[in-house]
């Protein structure tokens, strides 16, 4: 257990990756969103505005997932760390940082709720659907989302380490085809309305559950591949 915790410290050496860049992205999108809200509000519009800025740090977590493997795995091998210790320690690091991010999102949302959208009616964190079951569920939702993005990045990087560039590209392209195929199928079955209705009926906690499930599957897959990966 001790060695696994030491892996967390090893990962956190990359302070820029885990702390600075996410904060800068978050801060940056916040500032930009506020600026846009301000512009729109000052032009006389009165409706509530919802910005998608909260996405940005989440997408970045995908990058963090990639870097958690590529930047630190070779060094962990040099430190005689087993792949299992590395894997668990890295997931733990991801959970820690996702937790911090989720907390920041909750705080941001509470501020927005209290100030009625930064006094401008503009919301980046307090998205109604996400908060429909309260702040705790909203936090879990953001946590699940961040972890999912992380695991996707980590899994992709593991495919790369295990099988190389070619296989990774093939996998991504195939996924693309699968998506397009699925969309075509939905169109054929004239099922778009039903699909959207279904998604609309999902509660945040349910979607969080789905994300955790998918994340867990990808995480398990990553571990299997990591066991045979060469730094």
């Amino acid at each position, binding site marked *: 257990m001790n060695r696994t915790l030491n892996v967390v410290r090893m990962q956190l*050496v*990359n302070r820029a990756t885990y702390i600075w860049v996410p904060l800068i992205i978050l801060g940056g999108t916040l500032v930009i969103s506020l600026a846009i809200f301000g512009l729109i509000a000052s032009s006389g519009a009165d409706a509530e505005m919802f910005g998608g800025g909260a996405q940005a740090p989440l997408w970045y977590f995908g990058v963090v997932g990639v870097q958690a493997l590529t930047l630190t795995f070779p060094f962990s091998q040099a430190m005689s760390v087993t792949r299992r210790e590395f894997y668990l320690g890295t997931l733990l690091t991801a959970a820690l940082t996702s937790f911090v991010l989720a907390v920041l999102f909750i705080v941001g949302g509470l501020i927005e709720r209290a100030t009625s959208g930064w006094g401008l009616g503009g919301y980046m964190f307090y998205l109604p659907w996400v908060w429909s079951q309260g702040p705790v569920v909203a936090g879990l939702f953001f946590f699940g989302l961040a972890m999912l993005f992380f695991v996707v990045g980590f899994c992709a990087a593991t495919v790369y380490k295990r099988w190389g560039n070619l296989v990774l590209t093939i996998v991504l392209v195939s996924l693309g085809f699968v998506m397009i195929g699925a969309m075509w199928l939905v169109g054929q079955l004239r099922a778009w309305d039903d699909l959207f209705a279904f998604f609309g009926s999902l509660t945040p906690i349910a979607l969080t559950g789905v994300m955790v499930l998918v994340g867990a599957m990808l995480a398990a897959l990553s571990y299997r591949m990591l066991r045979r990966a060469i730094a």
Partner: protein
Amino acid sequence: MTAVIEVKNLTKRYRDTIAVDDVSFAIERDAIYGLLGRNGAGKTTVMSILTAQNFPTSGEVRVFGEAPYENATVLSRMCFVRESQKYPDDATPTHAFHIARLFYPNWNQAVADQLIREFRLPVKTRIKKLSRGQLSAVGVIIGIAARAEVTFFDEPYLGLDAVARQIFYDRLLEDYAEHPRTIILSSHLIDEVANLLEKVIVIDGGRIIMDEDTESIRGRASTIVGDTAVVEEFVAGREVIHRESLGRITSATVIGALSAEDRSELALAGLDVLPVSLQQLIVRQTQNAAHTDEGALR
């Protein structure tokens, strides 16, 4: 003598090459081994497999009596210093040493600090900004200060200049004398490291062609130089592993100790006798093994 590493019939095959070909050997505790051979002979592959960073295609590896794969108790007692090690992006040498201290139970900071001074390593500069030599120094410092029971050095001193290399050899010997452990050094600069090695394993083309005590190998061969006809007469019936001729002069390297009578005979015949260094012997043996297939040891 206890064997701390045992390798039996180890083979590593890639799609169309055999990197390690049915190799077997044992490494005894607390000795300094040289794992010698040309570039691409299989030295790095063998060391990677022993430290579970790479996997065998077939064969068995035992370290401290157990398989090293995913075995934290075994792995934490080993250290593998590679030639070009990747470090976390933002890491400085100080970070790297802090982390090494966390993972290596025998880590000695005083030794690390002394080496940092001697190598003049800028510890606050990010590793990715260091020169080749400074990067090698980081690896070497980790290898020595970790005091792991089994330490591998895979030509990590390639980036170091001659002065730095001498510092490495001297400090390694010094620390080894005070805290004996098993050290395996791979190098193609054989003569430089020859005096440090107690035992020598030579790999060529994925096979072991020599596995002996250094002292047994020293003096094993001599080079006879002189008039071609006279040289040939002397070396007839002896094992010649290398021959070179220029005009009427031939230089032949023969295996086998020369007795006092031999030396008189040579002096009388007007032939010169030159000693053969460890490096020359191994180079000649390797070239020899490439020409004849009997060079492989099983």
